[in-house]
C-alpha cells in the first residue's frame, strides 16, 4: 500500500548506490539487493562499457535514477541535450521515479559540477518549479527533488529552507527525496533545529529518503558520503519514517568506499526503522 500519492514504491525497501568498485562483487556473488540507485550522468553516454554494465545490472536488479546536473534551480533554461540523453536513459532503465537536487550549478552555459545552494525567494521557487514541470513533461516519469547540504545562505532569502522546499514542490506538484543527512548537515551549519525541518515538510510528498555519513571540520560539517551514518542522523531517520511511513531508502557512500558487504550492512540498518511502523500497526 503506497504511503502517499508520490510514494508508489513504499515496498521498494533499502537500496544502495551502484559504484564501480563493487561491480566485480555484484557480478560474481549476485547479492540480494532491493534496488540500486545509479547516478544518471554516469550512463548518459552513447555506448561502451557504462551501458553494457548497466544492461547486466538491469537484467537482475531494480534500478532508480538519481541525477546531479539537471540543475532545476539554475535561472537558465533546461539543457535540451541533457534532457534528451536523460530521456533515453529513462527508457532504458524504466526507472519508476527520478530524482535530482534542489540546487543550481550552471549559468550562461558554464557548469560548476557542484550542488550550489538556492536563495530562498519566491522568484527562485517559481523558476525551479517551472523547470521541474517541464522536465517531467519531457521525461514522462515522476520527479522528486532532493534537499542539499549547504554551506552558505543568502541575504536575499525570503523564507527558510524547508518553506522554500514546500513552495517548490507545491508549485511543481512533485515529490521530495528527503536526505536526512543533508538536513542534519545544514542544521549544524546554519544553526536550526533539524526536527523543525522534518516536521514542516509535507509528509505526503516524500517519495524516497537518503541517508549518508559526513565529515566534521572545525567550523562546519561537510557532506562527504565517506563514513557510516552517525547516531543523530539515524534518530532523524527514525523520526522521518514515523511521520512519513515506510519509504524507499538509500544509503549513499561515494568516497573511501568500503567493501560491498560493509556498505550493504550499513544500509540494512535502516530496516528496523522501516519495519517499526508496520509492526506497530501504523
Amino acid at each position, binding site marked *: 500500500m503506497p504511503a502517499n500519492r508520490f510514494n508508489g514504491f513504499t515496498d521498494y525497501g533499502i537500496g544502495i548506490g551502484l559504484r564501480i568498485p563493487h561491480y566485480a562483487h555484484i557480478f560474481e556473488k549476485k547479492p540480494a539487493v532491493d534496488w540500486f540507485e545509479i547516478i544518471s*550522468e554516469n550512463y*548518459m*553516454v*552513447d*555506448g*561502451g*562499457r*557504462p*551501458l*553494457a*554494465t548497466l544492461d547486466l545490472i538491469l537484467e537482475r536488479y531494480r534500478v532508480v535514477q538519481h541525477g546531479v*546536473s539537471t540543475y532545476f534551480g*539554475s*535561472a*537558465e533554461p533546461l*539543457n535540451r*541535450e*541533457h534532457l534528451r540523453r536523460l530521456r533515453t536513459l529513462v527508457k532504458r532503465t524504466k526507472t519508476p521515479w527520478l530524482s535530482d537536487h534542489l540546487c*543550481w550549478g*550552471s*549559468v*550562461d*552555459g*558554464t*557548469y*560548476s*559540477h*557542484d550542488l*550550489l545552494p538556492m*536563495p530562498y*525567494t519566491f*522568484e*527562485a521557487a517559481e*523558476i525551479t518549479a517551472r523547470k521541474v514541470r517541464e522536465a517531467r513533461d519531457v521525461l514522462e516519469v515522476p520527479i522528486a527533488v532532493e534537499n542539499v547540504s549547504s*554551506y*552558505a*545562505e*543568502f*541575504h*536575499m532569502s525570503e523564507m527558510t529552507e524547508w518553506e522554500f522546499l514546500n513552495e517548490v514542490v507545491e508549485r511543481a506538484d512533485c515529490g521530495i527525496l528527503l536526505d536526512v543527512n543533508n538536513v542534519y548537515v545544514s542544521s549544524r*551549519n*546554519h*544553526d536550526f533545529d533539524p526536527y523543525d525541518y522534518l516536521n514542516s515538510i509535507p509528509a505526503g510528498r516524500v517519495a524516497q529518503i537518503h541517508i549518508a555519513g559526513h565529515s566534521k571540520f572545525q*567550523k*562546519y560539517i*561537510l557532506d562527504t558520503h565517506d563514513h557510516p551514518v552517525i547516531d543523530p542522523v539515524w534518530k532523524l531517520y527514525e523520526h522521518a519514517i514515523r511521520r512519513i511511513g515506510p519509504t524507499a531508502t538509500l544509503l549513499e557512500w561515494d568516497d573511501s568506499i568500503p567493501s560491498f558487504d560493509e556498505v550493504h550492512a550499513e544500509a540494512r540498518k535502516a530496516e528496523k526503522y522501516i519495519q517499526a511502523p508496520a509492526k506497530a500497526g501504523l
Partner: protein
Amino acid sequence: MTLLELQRRMMKAVMQPLTSSGRITPKTEDGRLMKIEAAEFIKQNGGLTSLECLEIYSRSYWYRALDSLFDDFPGLRAVLGRRAFQRLSRAYLADCPSQSFTLRNLGARLAGWLQRRPRYAGKTFSLALDMVRLEWAHIEAFDSASEKALGHEDLIELGPDLRVGLQPYIRLLEFEFPVDRLLIQLNRDSDGHAEASNTVLKQKHAGLVRRVIRLIPERTHLAVHRIDSVVYYRRLAAQEFRILDALRDGQPVGDAIQYGFEKSTASIDEQRLLLETWFAAWAELGWLCPPARLKKDEVTA
C-alpha cells in the same frame, strides 16, 4: 537582485582561480576585495564569515575539476611533470571552464587550447600535444556509440562506387611521437603502484622521466578502438590510415583506396594483397558499418 544576477555573481567568484596555496583569491577580477564581494550576497554564518562560506564552494569547484583532469590525463601528467601539469590544468580551466553537464567532457577542448598556449608544455610541446590527443581519443572511444558491424559476407559485394562507414567509436590519429607505447608503459607502471614501496616508486619515477626524455620522434598512425568494452590502440600503415580516414569522410570505396595509395610505391599486386589483408582485419574487428544516413541495403545493393 534577481536569481540570474545572483548566480552570475556567485559563479564568477567561485570560478576565480585559487591562490598557489589553494585559498580563495583575495581580490575579484575587477580588483575589489573578495571578502566585500562575498559579504554583499552571502550571510555571515555561525562561525564562518561570508568569505569562508564562499571559499568552501570555490575550493570544491577547483579541486573537483582539477581531480577530473588529473584522472583523465595521466600520460600528459607524466610528460609534463606534476607541477607543470598543475599549472597547465589551472590555466586551462580558467580559460575553458566546463560547458557540459558531465565532467567526462572537461578535457574536450584541451588539445585545441594547448595549440594556442604552447608555453604551458615548454620543450615537450609536440609530445604533450600528441599525448593529449591520444588520451582524449581514449575517453571518446570508451563510451561512444557503435553501429551494427558489417561482416565478411557484407563486404563480398562491396564495389568501388559504394560507401561504408567507420564505427563511431573509432578515432584515427597521426602522431609525431610513439605516444601509444609510452602510455601503455605508463599504465603498466601505475598498475603496480598499489603494492610498491616508496623506494620502488622513486625508481619508477626516475625511469619514467628517462623514458619521456629519450622518446624519439616516430611518425605514428593509430586507430583507437574498442573490443568488448575495452579500449585498444592499433598501429596502422600510412596508406591504411588514409583509406580509413577517407571512408570515414564518406568517400566511395574506390576513391578512398585511390587516395590511400596516392603516394605509394607499392605495385598493383602488392596493393591488392594489402587491401585484402586490411579489409579482412577491419571486418574481423567490426570496424566497418553502414555509412551515416544510409541504410544497409543502400550499401551493398
